[in-house]
């Protein structure tokens, strides 16, 4: 009899511990790009057990250049997503009701860089030249800026010629564009590796110029937010994520290693991730995850000016309830 009871007991114990693990709420996070230090805070929060401590089982889903985030969210492929405000607001107008619940990146990392020995010295030199931009929804800040400067994007002597550039710096290396778009935390490093070091280029930083649109924020679907349980999970998620960010920025070497370890694709390298987390730290200086209303309004205005949006979004396009509850 004893022989029978012991395995049964062991089995029962195993079962209870299994249900203990199941008690964690599963949350799927869709990131905007591939696994890299742009999302270090989330990877660190997962690796350090911050999510688990809040009772969450977070799965991070990498994206890529051709993975638009909003449809993933709408189709239920993820519960929460990292997205730029412009894309989220455009999606909202198309019926995918995305809501900003937190804004980890205070400043944006988008820049236009031009070689110093080239024809571009200031914004006034742009007409008649070729500028590179990304598309797939990343073109919003560029076109908003050109619109503000009053330059046509259809070429000609009073306009600029726009290239749909790759996600690398080859257009600059090949002299196919006079200026190209880079992210400070990614392609700017590639440019330096290719010989375009900081002393050889002129940088037009969107945030520094006051033209920055909100970049990486956390978005969920409005209808899911109506569920109090989900709302509570999001409070926990945002709190744990910001804790992850704090740790990542304070311990960049360890953070870079965590990201490299988390990259199933095997593309991330330690040196590049270390560089990236250092640059991301600049964007997050003083950031606490709370959305800055002024930048939000400027983002909305730029989208309206550029006719990416036909009408201003309603008041529920963002909420501070989550961050208020998370950091009270």
């Amino acid at each position: 009899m004893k022989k029978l009871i012991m395995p049964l007991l062991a089995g029962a114990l195993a079962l209870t511990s299994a249900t203990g693990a199941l008690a964690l709420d599963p949350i799927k996070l869709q990131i905007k790009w591939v696994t890299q230090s742009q999302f270090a805070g989330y990877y660190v929060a997962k690796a350090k057990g911050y999510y688990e401590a809040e009772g969450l089982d977070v799965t991070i889903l990498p994206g890529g250049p051709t993975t638009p985030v909003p449809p993933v969210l709408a189709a239920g492929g993820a519960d929460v997503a990292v997205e730029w405000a412009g894309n989220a607001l455009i999606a909202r107008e198309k019926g995918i009701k995305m809501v900003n619940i937190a804004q980890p990146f205070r400043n944006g990392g988008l820049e236009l860089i031009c070689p110093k020995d080239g024809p571009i010295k200031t914004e006034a030199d742009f007409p008649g030249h070729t500028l590179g931009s990304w598309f797939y929804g990343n073109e919003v800040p560029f076109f908003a800026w050109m619109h503000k400067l009053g330059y046509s994007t259809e070429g000609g002597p009073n306009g600029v010629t726009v290239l749909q550039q790759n996600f690398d710096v080859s257009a600059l290396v090949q002299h196919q564009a006079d200026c190209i778009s880079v992210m400070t935390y990614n392609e700017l490093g590639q440019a330096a590796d290719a010989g375009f070091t900081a002393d050889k280029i002129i940088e037009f930083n969107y945030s520094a110029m006051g033209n920055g649109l909100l970049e990486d924020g956390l978005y969920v679907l409005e209808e899911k937010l109506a569920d109090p349980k989900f709302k509570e999970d999001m409070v926990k998620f945002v709190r744990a994520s910001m804790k992850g960010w704090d740790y990542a920025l304070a311990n960049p070497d360890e953070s870079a290693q965590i990201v490299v370890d988390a990259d199933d694709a095997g593309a991330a390298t330690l040196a590049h991730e270390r560089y990236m987390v250092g640059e991301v730290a600049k964007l997050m200086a003083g950031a606490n995850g709370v959305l800055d209303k002024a930048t939000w309004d400027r983002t909305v205005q730029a989208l309206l000016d550029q006719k990416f949006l036909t009408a201003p979004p309603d008041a529920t396009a963002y909420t501070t309830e989550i961050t208020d509850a998370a950091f009270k």
Partner: protein
Amino acid sequence: MTNWQRLLAIVAGLSALGAAATMLPQIQSLIFIVGVLGALTLARFFIPFSFWIDGVLAVLAGVAVLTSLGQSGPPLWLTLIAMWVFAWLFIDRLATAIANGEVGLPGIGVLVPIAFGITLLAIWEAVVQGFNINHVFLPPPSAIWAKLTAADSVAILWKDFQQTFLKGVLSGFALGTVAGLAVAILVDRSPFLKRGILPIGNFASALPIVGIAPIMVMWFGYDWQSKAAVILCVTFFPMLINTLAGLNSAGRMEGDMMRTYAASYWQSLLKLRLPAAMPFIFNALKINSTLALIAAIVAEFFGSPIVGMGFRISTGVGRLDVEMVWAEVAVAAVAGSASYGLIALIERAVTFWHPSVRGGRA
């Protein structure tokens, strides 16, 4: 009627009956009227009637569905099923009748694919509207049509077509065709080249477009020239292989005859072997006509000026402007089919001597 058609007839009649029954008591509604008419077709098992009645009922049911899309529910879906099955029955019976030579109206053969296409579009429209599917996932055909015909998007579509098709595809296609043909003739002449170039050609054809497109952008710039280069790469090999096979297809007997006439190499090439190779060459042209368009569109994903069909598709996806994406897809489909059709027509004229053409069909 075949057993299968009998089964379809029963399903069509019953779903129409169901639609009418669930629509009660609104007997003046179109769905009810069409339902009753559809149910009456069950009488066909006692009094057979023409398939044209099935066609008319399919059209009526389609009109009933598309005008009542607001009221999603059993009557709507049953009418949709009735429309679909009536259309199926109509197409099936019509195709059988044409095959048996029972209908001899000129051009009647075109009716089969047209009826099929219209049915598909009607179901698509009804499902998207009826289930209220977000247009980001699947826009209804009416929204795509609106995009295809609106003045501002027509201007964009035309610019994209010029950039991708008229500049990129046509030049790349011409280059690939000429290069493939020329190299095939060289290879055919020299056993050394045959051993050297064929494996390399084979290797080049195995390169994926996504691999060569960024490289061509680096070499030839962002504009259409790099797209033409990608097309050259993908169209070269089908042309080479087909032409080689074609050059070897001339009969031994005819070859011997040319020799007895003391024909030179070039004479026998131009008068016998190239004409004999024409069916093969046209085969390659037809394959390449669609391959070239696909290659151009995919290549534009990897760097382009801000115009072009591939550019518009990729940015449309990013901006969730999905109607525009589908409009470009529609233009690409029409352009691809039209160039295929044009080449098939030229083929009929050029290879008039070939048994397949003499039989009357290209």
